[in-house]
């Protein structure tokens, strides 16, 4: 077997293995850091190799245990591999950043294993071809997030009590949503007798053609929308996000807002577009409606926030609404737009959150009203923050511009005039609150706070600068030369709308 064939499983097993390794051999912090950054760099390189392999050679199916569709398959199609690249990129940067940012205590104890497992969870979700396995990896992701949120970093001004409360809400809601997911999976299995998503898809389309598709099948689709909508923080399932994400230390915040909420979108793209085509006619209007409300609610809430992290969290809600709008409109172009949007938001938001962590460390407070004048002392952070804000606001020459461009274009070409109009208006809201915030932090006078004297001494360290600068490069790259992303997303969208190659690749496996 070609070594490339193993890359999907390596993307998951390597961090798991390494997590165990780290728990077992707690060594000196410096070595630990270097090893972990090394592993994540390796994962990133592998993910790129995987994507290019899939691009060249088509869908890569990996049989764990070699049981064909009767076991669990990892399916690296362009969507999956692309998401893995994205998550590997962001985790690498967050990891580099974290080696400096996180508390000594966290680095010495559980940070590295938890972070490794979080990465494994993400990759596992993106690569699995089995719906129950997706549930398992959802749990990995949730629990690792919870464990990581508790940890603290140097710019982390969240009270422990608040963190715990946030985790409590997150966890309880998650457990309810996971319950719903299990109900859906069990019902799905009871209806078609399989858990392999490609297998389900082909059986469902057979039943639909034969006219024997039971009606409760659509209920299952709806339940899964609730599950994924919760993960993606779609209205009215978005409440938790503004509590939870800001409670996390910056690198984890970046992971959560950058990658983890994207899992919900991925879920809809993967599961609904593969399996629930028959329900799409009901789902699409619902998704569009809810995504528009999500956009509006997120943006409107963000404006009134003076807690920087919270403001950005609401912004994530709003932005995910744009992604879901694309998902809901459902044409090839709209899906392209959704994926482009997703990628750009992931990169820019995670960069913004990493920058925020460092900014809060400099500021000594979370309250925007108490900040000001940092441009002079931290021009680097100011530029990074600006690039991030521009991208989220959709201004060129950042990636965010093209995501808005293609989204609006897709909407207008499918004659969704009113949704686009609403999205457009809230894009200006976004511009407003992001720039207002940027100005409040970096321009104006230095405020008289606890840190008024000390703030100049706190300069970002090399690791933090490297992580931020690399992400900024990606943001600019996607704004200056978006063709790679656009054509990749376009191909992904085509594959989503025509799942036949996916199904064929999966089901043409021989059994032992």
């Amino acid at each position, binding site marked *: *077997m070609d070594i490339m064939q193993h890359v999907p*499983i390596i993307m998951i*097993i390597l961090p798991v*293995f390494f997590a*165990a*390794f780290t*728990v077992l051999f707690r060594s000196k912090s410096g070595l630990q850091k270097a090893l972990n950054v090394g592993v994540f760099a390796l994962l990133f390189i592998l993910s790129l190799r995987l994507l290019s392999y899939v691009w060249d050679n088509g869908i890569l199916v990996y049989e764990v*245990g070699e049981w064909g569709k009767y076991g669990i398959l990892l399916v690296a199609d362009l969507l999956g591999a692309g998401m893995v690249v994205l998550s590997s990129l962001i985790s690498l940067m967050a990891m580099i950043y974290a080696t400096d940012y996180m508390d000594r205590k966290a680095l010495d104890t559980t940070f590295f294993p938890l972070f490794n497992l979080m990465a494994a969870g993400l990759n596992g979700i993106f690569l699995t071809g089995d719906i129950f396995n997706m549930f398992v990896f959802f749990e990995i992701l949730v629990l690792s997030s919870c464990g990581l949120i508790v940890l603290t970093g140097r710019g982390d001004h969240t009270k422990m009590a608040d963190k715990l409360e946030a985790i409590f809400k997150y966890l309880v809601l998650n457990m309810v949503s996971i319950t719903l997911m299990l109900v859906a999976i069990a019902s799905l299995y009871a209806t078609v007798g399989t858990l392999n998503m490609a297998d389900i898809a082909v059986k469902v389309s057979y039943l639909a053609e034969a006219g024997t598709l039971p009606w409760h099948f659509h209920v299952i689709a709806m339940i899964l929308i609730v599950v994924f909508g919760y993960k993606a923080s779609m209205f009215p399932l978005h409440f938790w996000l503004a509590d939870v994400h800001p409670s996390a230390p910056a690198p984890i915040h970046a992971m959560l807002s950058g990658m983890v909420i994207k899992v919900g979108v991925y879920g809809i793209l993967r599961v609904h577009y593969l399996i629930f085509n028959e329900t799409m006619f009901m789902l699409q209007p619902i998704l569009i409606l809810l995504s528009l409300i999500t956009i509006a609610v997120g943006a409107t809430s963000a404006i009134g926030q003076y807690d920087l992290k919270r403001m950005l969290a609401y912004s994530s809600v709003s932005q995910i609404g744009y992604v879901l709008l694309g998902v809901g409109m459902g044409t090839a172009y709209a899906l392209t737009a959704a994926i482009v949007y997703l990628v750009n938001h992931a990169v820019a938001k995670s960069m913004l959150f990493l920058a925020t962590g460092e900014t809060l460390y400099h500021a000594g407070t979370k309250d925007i009203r108490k900040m000001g004048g940092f441009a002079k002392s931290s021009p680097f952070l100011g530029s990074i923050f600006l690039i991030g804000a521009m991208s989220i606001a959709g201004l060129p020459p950042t990636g965010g511009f093209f995501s808005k461009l293609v989204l609006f274009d897709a909407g207008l070409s499918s004659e969704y005039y009113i949704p686009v109009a609403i999205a457009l208006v809230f894009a200006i809201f976004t511009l407003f609150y992001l720039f207002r915030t940027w100005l409040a932090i970096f321009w104006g006078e230095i405020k008289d706070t606890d840190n008024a004297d000390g703030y100049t001494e706190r300069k970002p360290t090399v690791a933090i600068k490297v992580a931020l600068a690399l992400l900024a490069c990606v943001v600019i790259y996607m704004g200056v030369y978006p063709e790679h992303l656009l054509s990749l997303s376009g191909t992904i969208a085509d594959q989503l709308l025509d799942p036949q190659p996916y199904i064929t690749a999966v089901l043409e496996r021989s059994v032992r």
Partner: protein
Amino acid sequence: MTTLIAKTITKACVPIIILFSISLLLAGHNYPGGGFIGGVMFTSAISLLYIVFGLRYMDSLYRYQWEKWFAVGLLISTLTGIGAMAFRYSFLRSTYLTVSLPLLGDIKLLSTTFFDIGVYLVVTGSLLFVFKTMGEDE
């Protein structure tokens, strides 16, 4: 608390429970049981010791680092899978061979047994780690 009576009976029971847990682990492939069940059984045995003799007393006798247990377990389980890759198979590709030994007769050696042992250690390690950490908490 715990009286002499409870302690004595506990001493008598714990080895039984541990043996039973090992039996569940090894028999799991053919009878009810397996790594998880065995591991939880073992955990129960140790919890019984903790309950009856007290965590602090047990800790003064043995300094178990349960987190190492689950790390080792996770390593064993993943290595079982990776082992298959070394033979150019897929991850977690199972295999078994029936060995005829002169004294012991036919013995079926399964690669999945190692996987199950990993599961056993992880379950034991993580649950006892939780118990111990929580029990030590003031």
